[in-house]
C-alpha cells in the first residue's frame, strides 16, 4: 500500500510541470496556433521566477514574474505569427531556441557574479513553496498523503485546468475561442474578435507555461540554479496535448500518467522485470506517437487537432 501511495504521489509531482506546459499549449492550439515554443516559454518562466524569488524572497512575486515572463515570450510569438503571419513552426522553434538561450545567458551571468559560484533560493521562499500541511486533513492515512500534502504548484495547476475546462465548456466566449481554432473565417463572420482572442489565449497560455518552468527549478531542482533546467519537459508537454486530445480535464490525468512514466524506472523491481532504462524514457513519446496514429486512422473529429491549427488567418483571403 505504502509503495503505491509513494508511487502515485511521485507521479503527481513529476507530472505537475507537464500539466502547466500542456494547459498553456492547449490554449495556443485552441486558437489555431501550434506553438512549439513551450520549452522556451517554460525556460523564461524558470529564470524569471527564480531570479525574482532569489532577490525578493517572496513566493507570490516569483510566481507573478514567472507568469509575466512566459507571457512576454508568448507575446513575441503572437506578434510574429498573428499580426505578421509568419510560419508557426519556425516561429515556435525560434522561441524555444531564443528562450533557452536567454535563460542560460542570464543564469550564467548571475552565477558569475555570485561569490560562492552557486545560486540558491533563500530560506523564507523555500518554506513557502514546500508541501502544504493542513492540520487534520493531511494526517488522514493514505487519503491525506494522496490529496493534502503537495506543494502549492500542484493545486494551482489543477485549479487552472478546471477553470480552463469551465471556460471552454460553459461560456460563450470559450465556445467562440474553440470556433477560432476550427474555422477562424466562420468565427470572424459570426462577429468573434479573432485577433484579440488569439492574442489573449496565446499570451495567457505562455504565462501558464512560465509557471511550469518555475516549478522545474524551484521544486524539481530544489531551488538551486542549473542551466537547461526545463530539460525537454516542454516538448513532452506538446506531446501531452495530443494525449489529452486538446481537453484541459484530460490534461490533469494525462499529466499524472506521463509523470508516472517519468518516474516508473525508479519504482520497477529491476530483479524481476528487465527492461532497459532507455525504454522508460522513450515511453511518453512512443505512447504519444501511437495515439497520434490511432487518432488519425480512426478520424475521430473531437479528438483531433483543431482544424485550423498551424495556419494563419488573413481576413481578405476569406
Amino acid at each position, binding site marked *: 500500500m505504502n509503495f503505491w501511495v509513494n508511487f502515485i504521489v511521485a507521479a503527481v509531482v513529476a507530472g505537475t510541470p507537464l500539466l502547466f506546459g500542456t494547459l498553456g499549449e492547449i490554449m495556443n492550439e485552441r486558437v489555431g496556433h*501550434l506553438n*512549439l515554443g513551450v520549452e522556451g516559454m517554460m525556460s523564461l518562466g524558470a529564470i524569471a521566477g527564480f531570479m525574482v524569488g532569489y532577490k525578493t524572497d517572496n513566493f507570490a512575486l516569483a510566481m507573478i514574474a514567472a507568469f509575466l515572463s512566459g507571457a512576454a515570450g508568448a507575446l*513575441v510569438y503572437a*506578434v*510574429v505569427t498573428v*499580426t*505578421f*503571419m*509568419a*510560419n508557426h*513552426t*519556425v*516561429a515556435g*522553434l*525560434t*522561441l*524555444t*531556441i*531564443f*528562450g*533557452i*538561450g*536567454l535563460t*542560460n*545567458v542570464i*543564469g*550564467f*551571468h548571475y552565477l*558569475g557574479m555570485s561569490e560562492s559560484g552557486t545560486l540558491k533560493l533563500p530560506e523564507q521562499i523555500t518554506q513557502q513553496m514546500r508541501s502544504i500541511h493542513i492540520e487534520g486533513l493531511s494526517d488522514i492515512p493514505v487519503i491525506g498523503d494522496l490529496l493534502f500534502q503537495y506543494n502549492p504548484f500542484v493545486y494551482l495547476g489543477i485549479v487552472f485546468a478546471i477553470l480552463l475546462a469551465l471556460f471552454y465548456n460553459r461560456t460563450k466566449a470559450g465556445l*467562440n475561442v474553440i470556433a477560432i481554432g476550427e474555422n477562424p473565417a466562420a468565427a470572424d463572420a*459570426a*462577429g*468573434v474578435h479573432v485577433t484579440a482572442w488569439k492574442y489573449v489565449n496565446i499570451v495567457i497560455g505562455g504565462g501558464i507555461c512560465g509557471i511550469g518552468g518555475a516549478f522545474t527549478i524551484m521544486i524539481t531542482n530544489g531551488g538551486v540554479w542549473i*542551466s537547461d533546467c526545463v530539460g*525537454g519537459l516542454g*516538448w513532452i508537454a*506538446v*506531446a501531452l496535448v*495530443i494525449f489529452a486530445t486538446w481537453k484541459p480535464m484530460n490534461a490533469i490525468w494525462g499529466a499524472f500518467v506521463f509523470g508516472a512514466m517519468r518516474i516508473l524506472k525508479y519504482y520497477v523491481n529491476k530483479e524481476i522485470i528487465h527492461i*532497459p*532504462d*532507455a*525504454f522508460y*524514457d*522513450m515511453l511518453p*513519446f*512512443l505512447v*504519444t*506517437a501511437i495515439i*497520434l*496514429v490511432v487518432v*488519425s*486512422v480512426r*478520424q475521430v473529429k473531437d479528438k483531433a*487537432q483543431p482544424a485550423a491549427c*498551424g495556419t494563419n488567418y*488573413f*481576413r*481578405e483571403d476569406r
Partner: protein
Amino acid sequence: MSDHTTHKEPLLRVSKRRELTKRQAFGVKMISLLLALIAGGIFLAVLGFNPFVIYGTIVSGAFRSKLAVQGTVKLMIPLLISALGVTLAYKMQFWNIGAEGQIIMGAVFASYFALFHSNWPRPVLLIVMLLAAMIGGGIWGLIPAFFKNKWNTNETLFTLMLNYIALHIISFLRDGPWRDPANPGFAKIATFEENATLPKLFGVHIGWLIALILFVLVYIYLKYTKQGYEISVIGGSKATANYAGMHVKKIIIRTIFLSGAICGIAGFSNAAGSDLTLATGVAGGVGFTAIIVAWLADLEPLGILVVSFLFAVLDKGSSVIQSAYGLSTDCSDVLEGIILFFVIAGGFFVRYRFVPRKRKEEKGGENA
C-alpha cells in the same frame, strides 16, 4: 458579438500588396537583419556589455587563428548538410521537424559498421557507413511520410516524437548492447577505430567536402531536374500537382526519404568526423537550428550556404566571448533567435502592407 456592426475601422488594417521584386525583398531582409543586430545590441548593453566590442569579438574570434577558422568550418558542416536536407521537405510544405531524429538515426546506422566492421578497408568502410547513414536517416523520414500519406497523420507532431525515440535508442545502445566494456565505470560507446573516422583535409575532417558536394547536388536537383520541379509544384498546391498528373504520394515518399537521407549524412559526419564515437549529443539541436537556417535562406541552397556560415561564425565567436568576457556561449542562440524573429516578421512586408484608416482606398494601389 452584437456590437460587430458598430465597430470603428481599425487604425491600421492589413492588405496584400504586389509581390516585391527579388531585390526589394532582399532589401527588406537586410533592414530586418540590421534591426535585429540593433535589438541584440540593446540586449547586450542591458547586460552591461559594450555591444560593438562583443560583436567585434564574435567576428574576430571566429577568424582569429587557423585553428579558429577550422573550428568555425567544423560547426558549419552539420548545419549546412541538415539545412539542405530539411529544405527538400519544406519546399513541399511538409512540416518536418524531425531532422534531429534523422541525424541521430544516420549516426546510429553508420556507427554499427564503425563498431563491428572496423577491419574493413577504410574507403570501403566509410562508403558503407555513408550509405548506411542515408538509409537510417531516410527510414526515419519515411515513417511519418507513410502515415501522412495513408491517414493524414500530423507530420509535425509525429516527427517531434520520433526525435526523442531516436535519442533514447542511442541511450539504449549506450547502456546495453553497444556499451564499451573497456569503460566499466561509466556507460559510453567505444571510440571509433581510426579506420572508421573521416580523414582530414586542410585540417578539418572531409565532412566539409561532403557538405559542399551535397550543396552542389541539391542546388542542381532543385533547379534543373524534373523531380525538383515536382517538389515545388506540390509545395505550391497539391491539387495542381494532382491535376498535372503527378503521383503526389509517391513524390512525397521519395522526397522525404532524400531529405532524411541528407540529414542522416550530417549524423555520419558528426559521429565519424567530430565526435569519433556515437554520443547522445550527436545531433545536439542542430536539427532544429537547421530549420531556422533553411527558413532564413528562403529555402534557397545558395542562401543556406551563406546563412549556415554566418551561424557558424556566431557559434564559434560566442565561445570566444565566453572566455574573454564571461558571457555565456548561449549568447549565439539569443542572437540567432532575435535575427530570425526580425526576419520572419520582416517577411510580412514582402507580401502585405498596412493601410492606415483615414486614407480613402484608391483602386490603383490594390492588388488583393
